[in-house]
């Protein structure tokens, strides 16, 4: 539908209007303007081209040029990315921003080039916290015996077990009715997903423990990348970097809007939970999943970032 010489096809699992989708579209506008209309971006949102695991493979094959994905699916492909999926690895969103903007972030972004991809930028994925339909979680004891839906990942299953909960892998689409009917007691997610999925309608207690702050990445297919002139590569890299502040702004606004909606619905929010026992409970999880020196080193570096 465009008259550009080069149209980059980009995939996203989120719907139109979501911050990540809007950010990539913004990046496309920048590119079109800076290349005098030669390069455009076409975003296939709402998982039209498949779920993240599949679109990653398609990007590696060069069928898709750009892809906005969570780091989770990369955990089984690129070892270094695991470090961002560790529970309580970041002290907060600011800490996460400092890490990904700094040396650690750069070094992990470079790892993608060994897997047929070019890492362009980090986006925000929000901070995930627990919600449930049973009771406000104010201490680690409250987690005991609750059934939480988690994503299919060993780390997340072990995390919930270490906290004393019952980790229950379930397809995302079944979570709403499963909480409503009591198949499970709760799940965990960030403000926007908690709100847009409607889970706040059935899970009245949200505890801001921020156990996971997993950034997302914008990657490009190495095949498509190698087919471009160095100048165009530079244009793309810059446009991607320039879309980050816009993305963070959009994300913050979205988070705020979701939070207001959830609060207005009367969900009980536990804000000042003492995270120390939660963090201490993670020792066996770190022991099991941070084995290589490479990962141990990364964990130390991240913790050292002020």
């Amino acid at each position, binding site marked *: *539908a465009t008259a550009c010489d080069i149209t980059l*096809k980009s995939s996203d699992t989120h719907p139109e209007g979501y911050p990540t989708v809007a950010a990539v579209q913004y990046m496309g506008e920048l590119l079109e303007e800076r290349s005098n209309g030669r390069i455009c971006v076409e975003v*296939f949102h*709402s*998982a*039209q*081209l*498949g*779920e993240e*695991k*599949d679109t990653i*493979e*398609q990007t590696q*094959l*060069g*069928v898709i040029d750009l892809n906005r994905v969570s780091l989770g699916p990369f955990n089984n492909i690129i070892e270094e990315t695991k470090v961002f999926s560790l529970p309580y690895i970041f002290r907060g969103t600011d800490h996460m921003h400092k890490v990904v903007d700094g040396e650690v972030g750069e070094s992990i972004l470079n790892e993608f080039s060994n897997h047929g991809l070019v890492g362009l930028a980090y986006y925000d994925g929000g901070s995930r916290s627990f919600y449930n339909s049973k009771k406000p979680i104010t201490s680690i004891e409250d987690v005991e015996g609750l059934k939480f839906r988690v994503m299919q990942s060993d780390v997340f299953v072990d995390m919930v077990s270490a906290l004393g909960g019952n980790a229950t892998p*379930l*397809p*995302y*689409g*079944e979570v*709403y*009715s*499963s909480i*409503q*009917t*009591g*198949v499970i007691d709760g799940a965990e997610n960030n403000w926007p997903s908690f709100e847009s999925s409607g889970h706040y*309608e059935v899970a009245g207690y949200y505890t801001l423990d921020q156990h996971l702050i997993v950034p997302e990445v914008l990657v490009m297919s190495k095949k498509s990348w190698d087919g471009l002139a160095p100048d165009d590569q530079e244009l793309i890299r810059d446009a991607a970097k320039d879309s980050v502040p816009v993305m963070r702004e959009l994300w913050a606004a979205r988070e705020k809007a979701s939070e207001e909606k959830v609060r207005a619905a009367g969900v009980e929010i536990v804000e000042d939970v003492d995270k120390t026992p939660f963090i201490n409970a993670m020792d066996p999880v770190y022991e099991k999943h941070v084995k290589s020196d490479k990962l141990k080193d990364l964990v130390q570096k991240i913790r050292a970032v002020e």
Partner: protein
Amino acid sequence: MELVVLFGTFTGLLLIGAPVAFCLGVSSFATIAFLGLPPVVVFQRLNSGISVFALLAIPFFIYAGELMVRGDIARRLVALAGAAVGHLRGGLGQVNITASVMFGGISGSAAADASAIGGLMIPQMAERGYGRDYAVNITVVSSIIALMLPPSHNLIIYSIAAGGRMSIADLFTAGIIPGLLLAVALMIVAWFVAKKRGYSTEPFPGARAVFGLLVGALPGLILVAIMFGGVRSGVFTASESSGIAVIYAIAVTILVYRSLPWNEFVAATLSAVRTSSMVLLVIGSAAAFGWLLAYLRVPAELVQWMKGVSQNPLVILLMLNIILLLLGTFMDMSPLIVITTPIFLPVALAYGIDPVQFGIILILNLGIGLCTPPVGAVLFVGCAVGKIRISEAIKTIWPFYFAAIFVLMMVTYIPSLSLWLPSVFK
């Protein structure tokens, strides 16, 4: 040009009688190759398309249906229906429809319904002087009820084709009123046709006899309660309920009815494998086909085009219904759900139509397609079981088509028929 390759290859292969799954797969392959993209994507989509947890419901419901037919559950449900409504005008016709409501509520498969109830009812009806065409017509059209009442694996296919972000429990609940409405509409038509042809009624066997049959059929009826109640009360999820249905059907037929010998169990298992693998292979290759449609922006272009035609959602719904009815006459249901949902759902959404209601419209519409020539799996089954030619059945089936289309229009233009009940459960 890519679209010409895609649809051209697909239609060409379809016309020479290649299996639908391979028409979809090979036309996708040809188009990918034409675009100069790596064909491995087709096989990735095929594999991912079937690696979906919610799809487990399809082999399970088909398996449960097989077990119920071979293990006496279906026969007892029909006997109960016979005692309960046989005394109405068009007696056994009414029984046939009522049995579809009871059995269809469990099996979720129109073809299973037509073969199970048709196999039991059509010979009985012919013996009692009903026209074979009448018996087949009722068997065929009333089996659409099975698609509407929970559980319906076709609604699960729809929810997956829609991106898996829709509550299956809501979709199941939404189908109940339209399904019962269809049953009532068909019973009225059956009544009129029976009156015109002068068919008799069955004697009412008395409340005591009905009660006895009810007790006998209770394990089968409890299955409906377990599956719907289990999902609604939180013992298991919608996809799990199908697996539970299989376990329950095995338990009842072996422990309570003692009517499932080993060789019948094996036959049921192998038959379920044959049927479900066929359906699921189509779903897998349709995932590849659907990927190409999205990649080539077909849905987006269609929305643009439709917006140029009309701004009125009522007109758009009518157009979608006509297109779907036409497609449904030529193709089977599950491939059509997977192919058309990614194309038409965005159109419906763009006009503010609720995705749950659209799902019910889609299933009912394509369900009618199952009963129409040239390609109508249920019509074929009905005619095979009833031992009449398709042309014979078609000659007198019109009043029943009319009733089904009337209900389709009601469901299309009265959103609350589908959306009210789920909202009650919220």
